[in-house]
């Protein structure tokens, strides 16, 4: 189990940032991702592993039209 934006989410083997965002349907173009407090740049999302028990923040940067 991991925590994403404060909510429990089932952890999956070989989970990466990219796979997590896909699982969450987080399609927004501007998201700041932190895994256990570390900012992960977008260029690293494909390969960056998310270990079980991680605390993930996926903050969408938008404040409306």
């Amino acid at each position, binding site marked *: 189990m991991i925590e994403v*934006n*404060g*909510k429990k989410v089932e952890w999956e083997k070989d989970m990466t940032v990219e796979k997590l965002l896909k699982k969450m*349907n*987080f*399609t*927004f*173009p*501007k998201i*700041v991702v932190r895994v256990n407090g570390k*900012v992960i*740049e977008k260029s690293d999302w494909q390969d960056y592993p998310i270990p079980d028990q991680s605390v993930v*923040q*996926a*903050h*969408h*940067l*938008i*404040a*409306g*039209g």
Partner: protein
Amino acid sequence: MATSIEDMRKSRKVLAGYDYEQAGVEKGYTGKTLYINISDYTIKPKDVTEEMKDIFIGGKGFGLWYLWNGIKPETKWNDPENEIVISSGPIGGITQYPGSGKSLVVTLSPLTKSIMDSNVGGFFGPYLKFSGWDALEIQGKSEKDIVVFIDGDKGRVTIEEVDIDPAASHLVSEQLTELLAENEKDKKNISIVSSGSGGENTNIGILNFSFYDLRRKAARMKQAGRGGIGTVFRDKKIAALAVKFSSLSGRSNNPADPAKVAKTGVKITREINKFDAEQFRMRQIGTANLMTPMNDYDLLPVHNFKYGSHPDAVGISSDTLRDRFTQNMPDGCWVGCALSCCKAVDNFELKTGPYKGDKVLVDGPEYENAAGLGANCGIFDADYVIEANFYCDTYGIDTISTGTLIAFAMECYENGIIDKKITGGLELNFGNADAAMELIHQMGQGKGFGKIAGQGVRRMKQIFAEEYGADPAFLQDIGMENKGLEYSQYQAKESLAQQGGYAMTNKGPQHDEAWLIFMDMVNNQLPTFEKKAEALHYFPMFRTWFGLMGLCKLPWNDIIPEGNSQTESPEKIPEHVQNYIDIFNAVTGKNIDQDEMIRQSERVYNFQRIFNLRLGFGTREHDAAPYRALGPVTEEEYESRIERYDNQLKEDVGIDPSGMSIAEKVKAMRKYREGRYETLIDVVYDRRGWTKNGVPKLEKIKELGIDFPEVVDVVKKNL
């Protein structure tokens, strides 16, 4: 009506004139405003005092101050003493920083009966200032249609009769631009403000502010859309306002520190050039870039805000609309805006209405238009949305209110509250584009059921209950208005903070005060009432600031600077906030910091709240929200998201939903959500320094320095 520009020229009859000498702009201000009374043809300057600059800054602040002094507590929107005030602000008109050409319009609204403000792009505000005027204040009511001309080149203001048909705003803009321009190149020096026949026939009239697009050779338009300002404009029998100023330069605003302004502008322009294509694609799609993500996150209003997404939304998705917009055009609504978000559809052939068969330029659709006219009415057809957008603009009716009120009428029709007999044959089912288009024509032209619909959701609720026997409680639940203004187009059911961001606003549920849905619902950054209240303090105050300055909100956070993710509060875009402080200081020569920036807004925000009180509004009861904005009204809505709602009952409310009927679940959910909304109001009011009834406390207004005797009087009467 005149059949040619030459005939129009010959028809000009000056009713009153005023010659003036331009004082010039000094650090963002001319120090003068222009007062025009169209009842008795008074035209005179007023001095801008230092106190006005310190407390009200400009833009909306100036508008509120003049309106406060111009009307009485009992003044109605259609009384001659109601005013329309247009003002940009000290930063307005600079060409170095994107989004610096905005104007704020303030008046008493026919929809809310209280204060309305609406922001708008186009060239009028900056040209007004550079012609010598920090604000234009119009009072009175003419007996016949008039046009006000402000010639900033010659230093002359005239009130004139002109043989022009005010019914279609796109033609008024085009014809008056043609009339005033000496040649094609000169057209860029002209801006026209007009409304249209919808301003005469509905309560949702808008003002169109023109800007001339040299590449397209067309007078395009941006809208001051909210709250029926165009209705006031046409009630005063103003056919148009026109300004001409031919000497625009990068120094026109005469800033204290031009090098600093330029440096800050270069920095963000580079960011836009580098990142826009990979971030929000404002230069390709404008705000319509939100269509797809809003649908993906269940936030796109569908069927009168019942739902947040629809499988057919691809028909009006971001990419579908991108393919309709002409690409690679400099689509800024003010000079120097690199964000260039005001996209347009060129050569669109109209299929309906008085201009059927014409190939026209359509400004938009922006997100609100596509979401409101399209998804909220269950119409996922890009052609319909583009055509509806065009006609709303040229009739001069608000696309946001139009979308929300048609969606409301559709839900009433589907529930048998109104029928074909009442609608004059219109089958107002969700998804019926032909009926919706016909209703727009009826509203614009003051015909049929359009005469009822055009009065807005609040009035429709009253009529449907009183004349057609509808259940007022159900209408209250599904009628998406607060304070009399129709909701703008975001589904806020799952964000308590945004529910407050909509309904606790000064003017009504428009998202320009706060948009907290992602911070609250998706990011879960506001888990407590206190954090939500802090956001509902900071963001409305921060965003109010744009409307004091002549600035557009979009370059604040629709482009994200490098390194923003590493900052402590990425959602505030700290680097851009600093840019704004730097620019304000560089223009005015003052030295504010971020705290003072928020206090500048707080003064005006609280003053506006007290102004509402003075008019009999502004208390807690007026911050109530229709339940559709808070949660599922009907069993159908509950069932559509049953897993989500059942989980919330179990985890958040502490009720086991198994064994409960859907009706029981809807009831339990409602009790929970309404209770939370009331708690939110308490905590937000406390954070803002207001009483439990929403009245700013005396110590608060003293602390802000707005404790003028007449302000204190109003507050005391409401404590």
